[in-house]
């Protein structure tokens, strides 16, 4: 049951987006997020929306999986909308007591909602189509230049992938410890928040101790298999760009260019008509 948990939310299917190099997807996601913050205007957001819709279609991942990610930010979104609506100074549209909803407030709130939801959907396209493994590989490769300023890039990537490997194991262990303690009368369910938090302490202590023990064993096993950091290491699955990856980079550039020129494009269309 707990064994089946895969971290991240990888959705197994075969699509052009799935087959892209993880580096392309990382760069594209960063570019898309940046574009959302640079863009400021209806025309630009139409382009961003079109881009997003095309990507969703291409990824062959059902849309409801992407909306799932939205649940996490509903609260945040609600707060931003309320504050922006009420506290933006400008031309009032609607006034109750001392608070007034302004035209500017509506505009800001609408843009923020779009920004945040596009951001979440955009990044979930990446996590849904890339395995955690590919993601760490991609990050390691993209961050390689940072090695020059002594950032331990390989080590960070190795830690991330080990963490990913051990999350299900530690979950299973938590489950075991909980059951063992429940069998002896521990109560994790009832009581208020503070009481529940307190009952977690006898759970966390053995869990952390066992995690250290595991780490010790794993380090020994890695050394026994000649692990000595990133130097002299070869890759079993090296990342290499294919034609489609360069095409994807071109698409991203096109998208950014279209977004930045959206205003002029609109004017041209208007003039032509």
């Amino acid at each position: 049951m707990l064994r089946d948990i895969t971290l991240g939310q990888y959705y197994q299917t075969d699509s052009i987006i799935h087959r892209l190099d993880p580096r392309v997807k990382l760069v594209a996601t960063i570019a898309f997020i940046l574009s959302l913050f640079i863009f400021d205007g209806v025309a630009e957001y139409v382009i961003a929306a079109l881009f997003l819709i095309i990507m969703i279609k291409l990824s062959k991942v059902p849309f409801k999986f992407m909306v799932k990610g939205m649940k996490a930010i509903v609260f945040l979104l609600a707060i931003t909308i309320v504050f922006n609506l009420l506290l933006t100074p400008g031309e009032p549209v609607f006034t109750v007591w001392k608070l007034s909803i302004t035209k500017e407030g509506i505009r800001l709130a609408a843009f923020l909602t779009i920004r945040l939801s596009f951001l979440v959907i955009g990044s979930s396209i990446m996590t849904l189509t890339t395995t955690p493994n590919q993601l760490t590989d991609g990050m390691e490769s993209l961050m390689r230049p940072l090695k020059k300023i002594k950032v331990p890039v390989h080590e960070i990537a190795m830690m991330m992938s080990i963490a990913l490997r051990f999350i299900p194991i530690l979950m299973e262990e938590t489950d075991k410890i909980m059951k063992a303690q429940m069998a002896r009368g521990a109560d994790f369910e009832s009581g208020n928040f503070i009481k529940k938090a307190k009952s977690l302490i006898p759970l966390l202590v053995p869990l952390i101790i066992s995690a250290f023990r595991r780490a010790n064993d794993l380090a020994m096993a890695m050394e026994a298999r000649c692990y000595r950091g990133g130097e002299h290491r070869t890759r079993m699955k090296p990342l290499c760009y294919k034609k489609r990856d360069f095409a994807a980079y071109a698409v991203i550039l096109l998208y950014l260019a279209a977004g930045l020129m959206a205003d002029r494009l609109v004017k041209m269309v208007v003039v032509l008509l």
Partner: protein
Amino acid sequence: MGIIKVKDLIFEYIRRDEEGNVEGITTAVDDVNLDISQGDFVSILGHNGSGKSTLAKHLNAILYPTEGTVWVDGKDTKNDEYLWDIRQTAGMVFQNPDNQIIGQVVEEDVGFGPENMGVPTKEIWERVEESLKAVGMYEFRKHSPNKLSGGQKQRVSIAGVIAMHPKCIILDEPTAMLDPKGRKEVIRAVRALNDVEKITVILITHYMEEVIYSDKVYVMDKGKIALQGTPREIFSQVERLRELRLDVPQVTLLAHELRQEGFPIAEGILTKEEFAEAIDRCADMI
């Protein structure tokens, strides 16, 4: 000199209190001598705390001798220059299968050793394929290790070591955490490696049934080698093994008890087949 030679090995664990003063010294391995030839299947038996795991960690340069010397393929383990050569020559499989699998996919884990050694990508794939086939786990190459049974995980760990093309594999209680079925799987895989690939195997265990196929058995007690010989020689000494708090395989014990009762059955019977034969002969005589 054999593939592994241990001379006058002493290893002491030094316990210190919080200020770093020596509280006590435990001698885990006490004056051990071993000489293991290439291609042998050697078992090291011992009760908990007999020092067998500590000894094993010396054969892979994870621990260094306090006194004495360990040579792996003629190289002194104390010499740091040879560290990686030694670890490549003498691969090690540990007890807990969960704590030694690094990859998130079976094939990636098997490739981890060769990756560290700097083997070219194409050759890594060849090695991964051949080692997974050698332990019968090739069809699981795309699986997540979390979904495998204990025996399967341990076979993956063994494949991970074979992929480094070692001359010798040290298995430190590889079956201690497995169920009987998993134990059989692992031991079968290890025996096949020794028979087919001629890899030297050093099996550390406290299950008697697992050592009956070895060429030589060492029994450890309190850091010393208490007994050594072929499995038959060892299991002929039922009383002595009991003193060392070790059991003998059930068939051997049954044969021994029958002999005590006056039946003409030889000492040191190891397998059911041998026992059946002995009983037949016995019945003929009576």
